[in-house]
Each structure stands twice: as structure tokens, then as C-alpha cells.
């Protein structure tokens, strides 16, 4: 590994404590390193600095030097270099650290300035927290407790602005709550590259709106909801469904492509209410696509498989496993794995294939990459299958070899881990010729035709790891229990492996990992619990020559273009 170059460090003094931070850091970020919170609304670490909310004001001073000699001016009282404090507060977001800079984050001047801003922000705000969806995760609400007056001096009529505006299919705007921080405007322009938002009118009557004839309908529109510090922009899907303080947060990954966007599942009592992005500066910054968020709806979809069946009749797990084992023992088996399965599942499926003496196939899923956070490879974990050795070449979209083998009578039984064989290129006639053992979450033509159906868990219902396009291994955790009748994929696979005569294997992620790490060279020395939240980069050299389909995305450059640029 190439060591990252050491950044130039600048030493600043914040509230009397010296700290060295990389050159170019602003005061908010520098203070954060000392666990000092500089309140702010408009500043966002991944957007340009606007400096308009004026909440992050701090007191700033520089060491005094004699203008003529440039020699430090020493304060006789302290024996130290005197600090020339600027008599007016400065914004923390727009102030970049400089050597020797002194900052006060909680002096009377700072407190007074912040209280003034807080009062100003509230006078025309509707103060409708009891019916506002943002309550509980509202910066205005939080900081009002720290800097608010506690009563109002404002007896005038508040400004009236549009309510419940549909900015697009997924975002609802309440202009009266908007504090005009312009985060959403900057996001649309700078990140989504879809410059549709702006302000009309001026002064306190300024109103956020879409440009005439435009809509906020790009696939990243819900990020504006995330970064809105108040309840102005809300998710049309989530609003009024649940108070956020009731929701449990579970780390997960976006399953729509190989980017591996870090996300959080918000759930309560087994029901998922929303998905939001989780910051990972190496993968997705703080962003996530709308389409990825909506995938939580798969979990409670009407076509979820929940009944174990053998020959179409309801069955129990062990009976079904035995029925499957009988089919497998008869030989002529083909194994179809999944790029949507976890590394652990792929590892066990590989064991199964090895026991049967066959190699597994995978079904490729590709589409146009959006250059941001959706890549051309719509399977989240094809690289996991490579790493575990389930496959050794990139998959094709069509199972042509399997089709030929069925036609030739070489295959009598197919194990499919979540893949619809009809969608993967088999004909109904070919499907009818074989006995299918189907492990999956949702009903489809293959599950309907299968001899044995073993309902399994959705990604959001189980723990595991994916390897993304960067060969970064990242973990996800179970947020909600699966439907009654569904079994963890690892349990099903380990039962099948045992039924075929192998010794018992662990069937939960943590317990499986020692065996996994021992068997998979790329994962040697690793343990599941040691994988940090931001993931670990694996050595990708063994697969460097494979023609991966991904183009450039936010934090990823394909190897070929990386070499040429």
C-alpha cells in the first residue's frame, strides 16, 4: 500500500488549546477535532461555503507583530505574544486556519451573536414543531435550546409563504419553515448537477422554489431532505409516518449497484420506515440515490416468499432440506449463485458447489452508470463472488451454458440462490425439464416452478458483507426480523452442506468468519467484527485484468482510466 502523503499541518489555538490541523481546514472542522461544537446551518462539509446563516460566528485573533520589524509583540503581563482580537465576530465556516490563529468559540461576544441570529431565525418561523416532521432531528430546534431566548419579543405578523409545495415526485416543501440556508440549492447545482432550485423575491420574503418549468425530480432529490437543517424539505414518502425518535438506526449498504453506498435503516418494531445515507468519505460522502432508498419497500412487499414448500405443498424446513438433499445427491446439479448475496453466503454456496463437484454461475445485471452513486454493475457484490472464489470470471447476463446443459440432458437439478432463471435466459420449457431448489426472498416464475422453495432473508434482515467496486469490504447489519417462514440464507446453506455429508459449519456471520478468513486468501487475518464502519480495502491485484463494467463514479475511477489519466 502506498502511504498517504502527510498533510501540511497548521497549529491553531481554540479556546486555549493548541491543535494541529491540516492546512485548509476551517474553524468549524478544527473545533470539531477538539469536540467543540460550533453551531451552524448553512455550512455542510461536502458543499461550497455560503456563509449566510451567520450562526457559526466565533471570535478570532492573530498574534501581534510589529508592523515595521515583523517581530512578535510580547504582552508584558503574560510574557507571551499578544493576540490582536478582531472586534467583530467571524464566521467559522469561511475562516480557514492560519498559523498561530486564536479562536474563542464561547466568549460573550460569540454567545451574543449566536443568540441574535437564533432570535432572527425564529421570528418568521412558524414554530410548529408539534406538527412538524423534522422535530427530533431539527437543527433549529436543537440550537434553540442552546441559544434561544425562551420567549418571543416579536409581536408583528409573521410572513406568509407557500405550504406543502410539491417540488417533485419525492420532495415536499414548506417555505415558511425555510431558513434560506441554500444547502439544497448548492447540492442541486454542485452535486446532482441539476440546477433547478433557487430563491425568488428578496429580503425576508425570499422564497425557495424551482425555476419555472422545472421540477426537483432527479434521482438524488432526497438528499436535499437530508441536508435541510429544518423542516422545510421533507420526504413525501416518509413524512408523517413516524416520529424519528421512535426509530432504531441500523447500518446497512445500498443494494442497487456495486458502489456500496453506506446507509442507515430507520425502523421500529420490525417495520422499516426509511433509508438515509451514512457518511463515508471514501465511498459516497454523505449522499445516496432516491432509488436506493426506496428499496426498503422490497422488505414488506406483497410478493415476499414466506412459505417453505416442497412440490408446491407447505412444508417444514428440515423436510424441505432433506427433499433438496435427495435431489442434489442424485447428481447432474448446476448451481446459480447471486451477486446480491453476501460474501458469507457466497462462501457457503461455493462449499456446496465443491461438494457437488460443480462450478457455480452468476447472473450479471448491468445498466447505465450515472457517474455519481449508481454504477453500471447493478449487483452489489459480484466482487465478493470473485474474492470467495465462487466464480473466477465475470458473469454474463444470460445463463447460456446452463441452457445448453439442460438441453443436452447434463443437468437435472438447479440450485438457484435468488435468481429468476427465466429472467436469466432460460425458457419455460428448459425450466420444466429440471428440478429447481430455490432460495429467495420474492416470488417469481422460478420460485413458482421450483420443487423446493426455501424462503430466505432480505439484505436488511440479515448481517453480512459486500465487496464494492473499489474492492472495499463493507458490513451491513440486520435491522428487522424476516417474515415468518423465512430462514437466514446462511442457515439454509449450512443445512444443505451438512445434509450432503460435510461436517457442521457455523450459520451466523460472526461464527463463520474464522473459517471464511482461513479459506479465502484475500480475507486472511481479518475478522468480521474488525471491519471498520467505513470498510476495508482488499488487495485487488488478482482480479486486475478482469474487464469490469463500471465507469467513473463519485469516488471511483476504473483501473484502465486511472492508468491513462
Amino acid at each position, binding site marked *: 500500500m502506498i502511504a498517504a502523503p502527510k498533510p501540511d499541518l497548521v497549529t491553531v489555538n481554540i479556546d486555549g488549546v493548541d491543535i494541529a490541523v491540516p492546512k485548509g481546514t476551517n474553524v468549524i472542522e478544527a473545533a470539531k477535532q477538539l469536540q467543540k461544537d460550533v453551531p451552524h446551518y448553512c455550512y455542510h462539509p461536502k458543499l461550497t*461555503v*455560503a*456563509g*449566510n*446563516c*451567520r*450562526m457559526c*460566528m466565533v471570535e478570532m485573533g492573530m498574534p501581534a507583530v510589529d508592523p515595521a520589524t515583523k517581530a512578535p509583540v510580547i504582552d508584558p503581563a503574560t510574557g507571551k505574544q499578544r493576540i490582536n482580537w478582531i*472586534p*467583530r*465576530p467571524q*464566521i467559522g465556516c*469561511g*475562516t*480557514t486556519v492560519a498559523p498561530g490563529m486564536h479562536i474563542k468559540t464561547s466568549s460573550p461576544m460569540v454567545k451574543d*451573536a449566536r443568540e*441574535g*441570529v437564533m*432570535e*432572527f*431565525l425564529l*421570528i*418568521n418561523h412558524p414554530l410548529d414543531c408539534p406538527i412538524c416532521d423534522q422535530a427530533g432531528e431539527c437543527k433549529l430546534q436543537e440550537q434553540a435550546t442552546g441559544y434561544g431566548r425562551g420567549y418571543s*419579543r*416579536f409581536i*408583528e*405578523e409573521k*410572513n406568509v409563504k407557500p405550504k406543502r409545495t410539491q417540488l417533485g415526485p419525492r420532495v415536499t416543501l414548506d417555505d415558511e419553515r425555510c*431558513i*434560506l440556508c441554500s444547502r439544497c440549492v448548492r447540492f442541486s447545482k454542485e452535486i446532482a448537477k441539476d440546477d433547478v432550485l*433557487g*430563491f425568488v*423575491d*428578496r*429580503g*425576508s*420574503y*425570499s422564497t425557495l422554489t424551482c425555476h419555472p418549468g422545472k421540477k426537483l425530480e432527479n434521482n438524488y432529490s432526497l438528499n436535499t431532505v437530508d441536508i435541510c437543517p429544518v423542516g422545510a424539505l421533507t420526504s413525501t414518502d416518509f413524512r408523517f409516518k413516524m416520529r424519528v425518535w421512535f426509530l432504531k438506526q441500523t447500518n446497512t449498504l445500498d443494494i442497487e449497484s456495486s458502489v456500496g453506498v453506506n446507509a442507515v435503516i430507520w425502523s421500529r418494531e420490525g417495520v422499516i420506515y426509511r433509508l438515509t445515507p451514512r457518511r463515508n468519505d471514501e465511498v459516497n460522502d454523505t449522499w445516496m440515490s432516491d432509488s436506493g432508498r426506496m428499496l426498503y419497500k422490497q422488505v414488506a412487499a406483497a410478493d415476499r416468499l414466506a412459505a417453505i414448500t416442497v412440490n408446491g405443498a407447505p412444508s417444514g424446513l428440515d423436510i424441505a432440506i432433506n427433499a433438496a438433499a435427495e435431489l442434489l445427491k442424485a447428481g447432474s446439479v448446476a448451481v446459480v449463485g447471486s451477486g446480491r448475496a453476501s460474501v458469507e453466503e457466497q462462501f457457503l454456496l461455493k462449499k456446496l458447489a465443491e461438494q457437488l463437484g460443480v462450478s457455480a454461475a452468476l447472473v450479471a445485471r448491468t445498466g447505465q452508470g450515472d457517474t455519481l452513486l449508481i454504477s453500471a454493475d447493478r449487483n452489489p457484490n459480484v466482487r465478493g463472488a470473485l474474492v470467495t472464489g465462487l466464480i473466477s470470471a465475470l458473469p454474463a447476463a444470460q445463463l447460456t451454458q446452463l441452457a445448453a446443459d439442460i438441453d443436452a440432458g447434463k443437468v437435472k437439478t438447479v440450485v438457484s440462490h435468488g435468481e429468476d432463471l427465466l429472467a436469466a435466459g432460460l425458457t419455460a420449457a428448459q425450466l420444466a425439464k429440471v428440478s429447481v431448489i430455490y432460495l429467495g426472498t420474492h416470488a417469481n416464475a422460478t420460485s413458482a416452478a421450483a420443487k423446493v422453495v426455501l424462503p430466505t432473508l432480505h439484505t436488511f434482515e440479515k448481517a453480512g458483507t459486500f465487496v464494492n467496486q473499489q474492492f472495499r469490504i463493507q458490513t451491513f447489519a440486520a435491522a428487522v426480523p424476516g417474515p415468518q417462514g423465512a430462514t437466514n440464507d446462511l442457515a439454509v446453506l449450512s443445512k444443505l452442506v451438512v445434509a450432503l455429508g460435510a461436517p457442521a459449519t457455523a450459520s451466523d456471520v460472526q461464527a463463520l468468519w474464522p473459517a471464511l478468513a482461513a479459506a479465502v486468501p484475500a480475507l486472511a487475518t481479518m475478522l468480521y467484527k474488525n471491519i471498520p464502519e467505513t470498510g476495508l480495502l482488499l488487495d485487488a491485484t488478482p482480479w486486475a485484468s478482469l474487464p469490469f463494467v463500471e465507469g467513473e463514479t463519485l469516488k471511483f475511477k476504473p483501473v484502465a482510466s486511472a492508468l491513462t489519466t
Partner: protein
Amino acid sequence: MPAPAQSRVIFQHIDEPGYTNDLACYVRHGGYEVLKKSITRPPADLIEEVKKSGLRGRGGAGFPCGVKWSLVDRKSGKPIYLIVNADESEPGTFKDRYIMHQDPHQLIEGTILSCFANNVKQAYIYIRGEMPEGARILEKAIAEARAANFAGPNILGSGYSCEIYVHRGAGAYICGEETGLIESLEGKRANPRIKPPYFPAVLGLYQCPTIVNNVETMCHVKVIADLGGEAYAKTGTPGNTGTRIFCVSGHVQRPGYYEFPAGTITMGQLLNEVCGGPLPGRTFKAVIPGGSSAKVLRFGERYKGKRKVGADMVDYDWGVEDVPMDFDCLAMIGSMGGSGGVIVMDDSVNMVEALANINAFYQHESCGQCTPCREGSLWMKKISSRMVHGQARKEDAALLKSVADQIPGRTICAFGEACSWPTQSFLIKFKDEFETYAEVKKTLPADRLALV
């Protein structure tokens, strides 16, 4: 002491019978001679002359022009732009428009000279949206100057080329703030930029080094190029060189514009002798000395302190009438020379109502970008508006002052000061009027002029 005589330099030909705004007339009166003799000089000489002249910007802040020019980043390799700020919008100010309407070539000559000095190839005159006539006159004048080779390519065969474009604003006070102006010129909302990092001298128009100067300042540059910096500095007083134009409006006998050597005339001389004193039967009550955002002065109050005269510290004890009308003396007594817009109010004026009017203006012109100005200006307006509509409370005086105190020094641009200084100063100097307004209002005729 009698008032000094007017010394019309910039306004030499304003209102002169027979003087027209075309090129022929300007040339007949010696126009473009300064350009002819200066274009062969090294540009650095001209910058040096401007530095020596001590010229202070006439837009309002009084920042030394030579210093402004020396701050320009000349090493970036990027083009340097010059913008003439012709967005004259400060209430009470009406000097630039006369230059543009009646003597546009004076501005063009000064602009070309300034561009030449700073190696600027492209200049913009950003003119206020409400001055369409001025824009037409300027465009015609630029075309004339170009045809006569005083502007455009290879000026007077010197090899130096410079184009001037007129850009019309869309009617917003904030476009007079230099970074707001630059945003507007770039085709965006005129939201002023945060400084740092966007100092025009380094990251101005199109992120290139940019000089923004007032119309009148450009005309002074022409005078400096003609006379030389040292000779120019002999007019006026040290630190306040050249002439100053005062635009006097309000309750005087002869409102209008007057040009004097800077620092040589006092407020009393200006109002009583030059402008003929108060209207019959009236007495002066208050005066705003530098455009409506300057802090108000109350007749009858005394200003005491020490000031530097030459090398000595001298005690001063002035009434409003005694204050010399220069940047430093007006700053010393807590107001500012600003744009030279002197607004006079006599004893017929109710200060609550006057402030209500000013607050309505600033509220309407706040860009709305940053919190203290956006919310504060409207809040102040709502309070003063409510007061003059008969709903005044005694505590409104203290509230107004407190709201105003939460604005200045905390905003992106100087509009925060501009909108809060009137309220702060009115409340400090006329607090009693605000506290008793509820009672006073009851005595006023109901059919008085409709107020904001």
C-alpha cells in the same frame, strides 16, 4: 467665518448653458487632452500619481484609491477588470447621475486613464436600473469615443486597447455593494460574496482581479492625471484631498449639489450660507450627513474630543454646525461622510416617521442572503410601521434599538451597518420621541400623508 467659494472641478460644466453631452462639445472644452498626454507615460507613473494624490473613493467608504489599486493581484496571469460603480442608489445622493447625463465623456476619459494605469483591457460601467437615460447617453458617448479612437483598439496609436461596456442593473440597492455588483454583472442574483476569500482585488469578476470604483472617483483620476498627484493634493486638506460634491436635500432654502475643496466647509456654512438656511419659520432639527445609512446628527448636541491637526493634538468642541465636512471629522463624531448625500430635517419632522420611511427602504432592499440583515431589517420595519399606524408601545423604543444592535458587524456585507445605523442613531438621539410617540400620534391629524 464665511463659507469658501464653490470650486467646481468635477461639476465644472454641469448645468452650464450651451454645454452638451456629445463628444464635440467635450473636445471643444479641452476634453481627452489629458488622455493624449498621459497615454505615452508609463502606466506605473499614473498609479504613483494617484497614490500621491491621496484620492479617497467617492462611493461612500472613502477608501484610498491608490491603496485599492495597489492591492490588485497582478501576478495571477488573469486579466484585470475595472468596474465603474454607477449604481448610485444611496437615498440622498445625486451626483453621479449628473456626470453621466451631462458630462459622460469626463467619466469615459477617467475610466480609460484608470484602465490604462492598471493594464485593464475590459471595463464595465454598471449603471443603476432606474437610470435608462444615463445608460443610453453613456452608450452613445462610448460609441463616439470609440469612433474618435479614445477607446477601443489601439487607443490614439499607443498600442493599448480597452473596451468599455455599459451594463444596466435591474433595480436593487444591493447592486451598489461591490461584490453584489459583481454577482449581478455575472448574471446572478446580487448576493454579496463572503470576504474572505472573495476580495475583488484577487477574486472579483469571473474570479479575476477586479477594481471597482465610483463614477466620481474616475473623474478625479482624470484631474490627477492632468495636474499630477502632488498638485491635486494641494486642494482640500491633508487626508481629504481634492474636491467633494455635496448633495443637499430636505428642509433648506436651496437644496442642490455643491462642490467644495474637501474639508474646507463646515456643516453650518453648507446649510446656512450655501443652502440658504432653514425654511421660513423653521429651525433645523437633524441632519444625515452622508446618505441615509449614515448616523443622524442632532442639532444642539455637542461633540468633544481631541483630534490631530498637523502634528499636534487639538481639543475640539463642536456643535453640528461646526463640523468640517470631511471623512475623518464626520467619522470622529460618530457618523460618516459617505456618499455626500446630506439630508436635512427641520422641526416639522417627526423622527419616528422619518425612521419608518428609512426602515421601509432598507427592508425592501435587503438581499435576504444572511440572517441578521434579512430578518432584522424587516423586523425593524414592521415595528416602525406599526408605530406610525397607531399601534406604538412605549417599549418599542428599546426593542427597536435592541434589534438594530443585533445586526451590524455580523453580516456578509456592509448592508448590515447601512440598515441598522439609522435605527441605532435615531434611537440614541431621539429616544424621547420614540417613547412618547403613542401619545403624540393621537394629536396628529388622521388625514396626514399616508405612511409606510
